[in-house]
């Protein structure tokens, strides 16, 4: 799919969605040498070296941005690499992803941040990275946040772990105010969640699986909002799962606390009744919670309390998932299904505007991590995604690009498909169908 010399591209008759200005209009887009050169109703070009994409009836969106993925490199390259993860990303319509720091070794030094960014340069999409907040994610001492920011980290996160030492968390917050980068927080009280596998509720009782109480998330969210209020730090609470969390963040925002948050499609799509299948791909952290929580998350999206949708793409080998619930690893992949799952649960079932969803996966997260993405404008490097909102597809293991196949959405019929993705000016992904003509 990658070409050494960038071919010029013409996207015909797509309905352009511009989340920065909250508008939609039908137009052609001409891309020359990777740069969007023209956005006009009718562009005619005489050029043999042009690749035309017929987007009639389709939506053209800024390339998506996923601010929470685990590409497993370095250390777990058997599960995913930056290269394979980026291929999965562009298949899902993403042109920018942000890696979490829980690799092996942990991304807690300048050289590791630079390594990931460098690897990303030669992959299918833009790959950014956060850096760890605590050395080795041990929750004991603060990383060289200043040096890590210099190296290009777009935020700090111990994702996968939660800093249980409140004093340390407070000092991390105070220190972070120097660098104007967000702290991306995985909220989990280890003492409460310890040993838990699934949401603590009716289903955990029926199925005999050890539960993880909502308190695990809520206590830490409450603590961190208090700490952020006092320190002035900018925090971003990731993979929100509880109703209480939505309510606390709503209130904190009203009080002026610098807090944002995101949610994953699997928390929007499923409730804990899915557990009856004992499908270990539903073993995720935080756990898929009750219908009441799911509805609160959907409502949080609609009301604007929730700022972004992320995949929390967490690849695992079959051997880690083809086992009992107790022994299986936490996590589901999600890059390839994020759009269609979110589109199905929000735009199809809840009749939410598509523009709003696009904003949640492009412009809004760009603002949070402080990068200039999520825009469609002449003169910019082309990062674009073409979507067919009418198409429906059943998710099958055989179609998954990601190196690991542990998707919670296997077997689900989802609406909305990515037709093609233009990443950094090149056609990085295209569905093999008749809409193309060369």
């Amino acid at each position, binding site marked *: 799919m990658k070409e050494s010399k960038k071919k010029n591209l013409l996207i015909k008759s797509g309905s352009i969605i511009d989340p920065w200005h909250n508008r939609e209009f039908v137009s052609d887009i001409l891309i020359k040498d990777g740069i969007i050169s023209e956005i006009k109703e009718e562009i005619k070009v005489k050029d043999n070296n042009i690749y035309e994409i017929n987007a009639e009836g389709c939506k053209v969106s800024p390339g998506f941005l996923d601010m929470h993925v685990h590409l497993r490199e370095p250390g777990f390259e058997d599960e995913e690499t930056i290269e394979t993860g980026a291929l999965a990303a562009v298949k899902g319509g993403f042109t920018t992803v942000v890696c979490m720091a829980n690799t092996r070794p942990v991304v807690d030094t300048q050289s590791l941040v630079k390594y990931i960014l460098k690897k990303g340069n030669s992959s299918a999409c833009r790959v950014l990275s956060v850096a760890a907040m605590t*050395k080795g994610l041990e929750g004991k*001492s*603060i*990383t*060289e*946040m*200043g*040096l890590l920011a*210099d190296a290009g980290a777009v935020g700090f996160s111990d994702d996968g772990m939660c800093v249980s030492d409140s*004093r*340390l968390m407070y*000092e991390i917050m*105070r*220190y972070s*105010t*120097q660098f104007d980068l967000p702290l991306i927080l995985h909220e989990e009280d280890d003492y409460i969640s310890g040993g838990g596998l699934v949401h603590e509720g009716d289903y955990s009782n029926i199925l005999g699986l050890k539960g993880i109480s909502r308190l695990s998330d809520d206590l830490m969210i409450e603590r961190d909002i208090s700490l952020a209020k006092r320190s002035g730090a900018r925090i971003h609470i990731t993979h929100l799962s509880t109703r209480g969390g939505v309510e606390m963040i709503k209130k904190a925002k009203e009080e002026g606390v610098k807090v944002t948050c995101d949610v994953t499609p699997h928390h929007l799509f499923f409730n804990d009744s899915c557990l009856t299948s004992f499908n270990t791909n539903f073993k995720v952290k935080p756990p898929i919670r009750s219908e009441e929580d799911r509805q609160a998350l959907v409502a949080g999206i609609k009301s604007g309390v929730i700022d972004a949708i992320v995949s929390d793409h967490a690849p695992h080998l079959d051997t880690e998932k083809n086992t009992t619930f107790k022994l299986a690893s936490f996590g589901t992949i999600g890059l390839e299904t994020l759009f269609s799952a979110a589109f199905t649960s929000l735009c199809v079932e809840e009749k939410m505007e598509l523009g709003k969803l696009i904003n949640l996966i492009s412009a809004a997260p760009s603002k949070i991590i402080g990068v200039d993405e999520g825009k469609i404008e002449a003169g910019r490097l082309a990062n674009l995604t073409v979507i067919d909102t009418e198409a429906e597809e059943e998710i099958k293991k055989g179609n998954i690009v990601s190196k690991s196949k542990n998707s919670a959405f296997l077997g689900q019929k989802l609406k909305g498909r990515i037709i093609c993705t233009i990443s950094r000016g090149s056609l990085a992904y295209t569905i093999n169908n008749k809409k193309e003509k060369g």
Partner: protein
Amino acid sequence: MLSKKSIIGIESLEKEDIGLVLANADSFLEISGRDVKKVPVLRGKTIANLFFEPSTRTKTSFEIAAKRLSADIINFSSSTSSVVKGESIVDTLKTILSMNVDMVIMRHSDSGAVKIADSFVEVPVINAGDGKNQHPTQALLDLYTINKVFGKFKGLKVAIVGDFINSRVAGSNINLFKKMGMDITIVSPTILLPEDFSKMDVRHCIDDVIEESDIIYILRMQFERQDRKFYPSIMEYNRFLSLNMERLGRMKPGSIVMHPGPVNRGIEITDEVMETRGKLREKIVIERQVTYGVAIRMALIYLILGQ
């Protein structure tokens, strides 16, 4: 004469007191430059140098000061831990004062210890540093150094750089420098700064002040001294706060670098800066501070005991 019998903190010193101490210090500086570095002015006076916390420099400075004034000085050194539990500092003081001591110089690892001691004894007490509270003679010698270099205080731009949470020097110096009309900028990472400092002019990187400051005052950065080691690493410190050759070279003409000593080479100041020769060398007045420290302590002891 001084308005107080004891020197416990900077806040209790009147501007006139400070003026008097500085004016007298020149004479003592001259004495320290003689072949016979001794005047008989305090013959027959006995001073107790009580160090409840190890300190070589300050203790020696006071000892030399007292000896150059012909006073007898007795050293009592003890780390707090080795003072048998149950024997309070008050009892230790009373024992020593029973031997007819005329003045007490005291250093203690606990904030407020010197003030408590002062309230129990009749003789004058000089605070040689108490916990993270105050170190008034350091502040005065720093002020004297500034006076010798610039001949004025008002409007001088001072940047104090480093660890404010664990420093006993910072508090006294800020207080005194402000009193004398200097413009103070704090340069410190948020996590080495008490929260109430946010009201002051705070920067986080030495680069923000290096070019416009008349005085770069560098505090000690003792990684092992932090209550809890929140600051990430020496490398991070070097990036934002250390004085290196490049930064030294950007300082404006006539500006100086001060440090209360001892310098942690490679942490707050690089080895190259400490070893530099030639024109830039003149900017580093750390050794002059030590020399002036003796003169200031002589002046204080003289002004208190000479009455």
